[in-house]
């Protein structure tokens, strides 16, 4: 049962920040070909907090990769900020990532041999920000995620929850338009997960960062304002989340 793409009344007069038009994605060729996305239409507006759910292999990760400009559709188009990403070069997509997107992964993906501060600073290095400012902004970001005083610790010396906070600090230091989170609480216990979700919600609420989060857990999805459910490469359900967070 597929519902009409939901138009949140709050945003319906604006242009969508993210727009999928009949997006398909096929991996492999011939017999082995696997259709990950089978014609997705989707609009996400600036400031939304979207949870993407669905069983493994339903296409939610592929969708997130395309939104994150790491992958491109086979057909259809993906419009980000009015730009057709499918027509961009690898370099232009990297620049989009650099300037508008922040990533948080299930496995944290921190550089293990760098300190928390160095990890958080890294995106600014690629933005050619001078060391002094980099330093200051990294400390600010770490303070935002509640890790003031942990700057010199390496990921190995931090707990899972703390590592994920560092990853979030790294993602928000560039003040991205969109924060993409791929099962950010997948490796954490419930208490830690709640803390992370509170942090993410606060970023959405206080800074207006658009959040798109893939998750398995209904508990975590309930923090979002909108839930999109994938099944077999199609959007099965797209609804506003009733629960107040």
């Amino acid at each position: 049962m597929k519902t009409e793409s939901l138009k949140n009344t709050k945003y319906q007069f604006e242009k969508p920040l993210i727009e999928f038009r009949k997006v398909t994605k096929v991996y492999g060729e011939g017999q082995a070909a696997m259709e990950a996305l089978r014609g997705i239409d989707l609009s996400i507006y600036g400031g939304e907090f979207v949870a993407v759910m669905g069983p493994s292999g339903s296409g939610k990760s592929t969708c997130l990769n395309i939104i994150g400009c790491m992958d491109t559709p086979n057909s259809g188009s993906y419009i980000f900020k009015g730009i057709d990403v499918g027509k961009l070069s690898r370099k232009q997509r990297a620049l989009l990532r650099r300037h508008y997107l922040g990533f948080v992964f299930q496995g944290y993906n921190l550089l293990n041999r760098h300190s928390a501060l160095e990890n958080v600073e890294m995106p600014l290095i690629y933005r050619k920000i001078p060391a002094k400012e980099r330093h200051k902004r990294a400390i600010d970001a770490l303070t935002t995620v509640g890790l003031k005083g942990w700057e010199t610790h390496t990921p190995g010396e931090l707990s899972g929850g703390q590592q994920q906070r560092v990853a979030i600090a790294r993602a928000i230091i560039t003040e991205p338009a969109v924060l993409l989170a791929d099962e950010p609480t997948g490796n954490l216990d419930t208490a830690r997960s709640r803390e992370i979700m509170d942090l993410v919600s606060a970023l959405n609420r206080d800074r207006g960062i658009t959040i798109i989060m893939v998750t398995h857990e209904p508990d975590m999805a309930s923090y979002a304002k909108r839930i999109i459910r994938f099944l077999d490469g199609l959007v099965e359900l797209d609804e506003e989340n009733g629960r107040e967070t």
Partner: protein
Amino acid sequence: MLWNTILLAMREMRRNAMRSVLTILGIVIGVAAVITMVTIGGGATVQVRQQISSMGSNLLMVSPGKRLGPGLSSGNIPFKQSDAEAIAKNISSVGAVAPVSSQSIKAIFGNQNWSTQVTGSDNKYFRVTNRSVRSGRQFSDSELRSGAAVCILGETVRKKLFGRQEVLGERIRLQKLSCEVIGLLEEKGQSTMGMDQDDIVVIPLSAYQRRISGNQDVGLIQVSVKEGASTEKVQLEIERLMRERRHLSPSDDDNFHVMDMKEIVKMLTGTTRLLTALLSAVAAVSLLVGGIGIMNIMLVSVTERTREIGIRLAIGALEREVLMQFLVEAVVLSSFGGLIGVVLALTASIWLSGILRVPFVFNAGIVVIAFLFSAAVGVIFGYFPALKAARLDPIEALRHE
């Protein structure tokens, strides 16, 4: 940005200190070997020049036969003593002229024997070759005329035959000739060709001719040119005189050769240079092998750090920036190897020049070239792994365990 990348590369090197050291070993050895070879070779060349100038750069050697090399001749018409006398008499700028004949003979004293170079000449020989008699005396005129059985020994011969015994007045036997030792030569050490110049017994030429060679031939005429006179001019004059004395028509080739010391210097330094070049080439191969080692380790490093590359690409690093990061790492690694190589080479060169008794001549050119070459090795062999890193698919790279 570049400075940051260099700092990052240095940190990466420190993290894998052991591996880094092993990786750059090839470069270190290559650079060190090339620089050491060239430095020692350069020192040897300088030494050859110094030794020859100590022999007197104003020395000419007139030998029968076509040019073969110092002291060597093919079996052409030999000289006579009169040829030497003619040179001394007719050519104004010559200082001293010594007719020289020599061959290897076993010298015997008591139950000691020693195979040495027995040279027949006269007192001019000492002047021409820049040698002096340290104790005893030179030949007297009558001894020279009559071919008396007297001899003057080099230091090596004295040591071998007499050890600590008193020498002057003793008699040694050279084939059938028993001759009295009347003098000892000042020590001179090794010659440019590695010959022991103190392994010598000098006897009057007439004694040599009568009692040893059995003919009136003179093997070689050594001529010293007067201070300030032109060697070339004297050389030409000797050639003209000898052609005349040997009745050569203008169409005949010379059947003798006048060799200038400069020519000998050129010949010997040429040999040294060739050897240096060959050894350096072999050493340079080690640089190449070192480069392959660096490529290997960089490839391993790219595989190991696939996730890191994925992260960097995901947060917006450009291909070019990842490429630079790995390239700089390879260059920092190889340049560091080069630097250690330079230090090692200079230490080894100073040490070796001491052992080989060759002067240490610092050659800034080869140090700079070898260092730059090591950096270039990093660029060349680091490029492929760096490209591999830069071309990674960020999604795949992030999934990599």
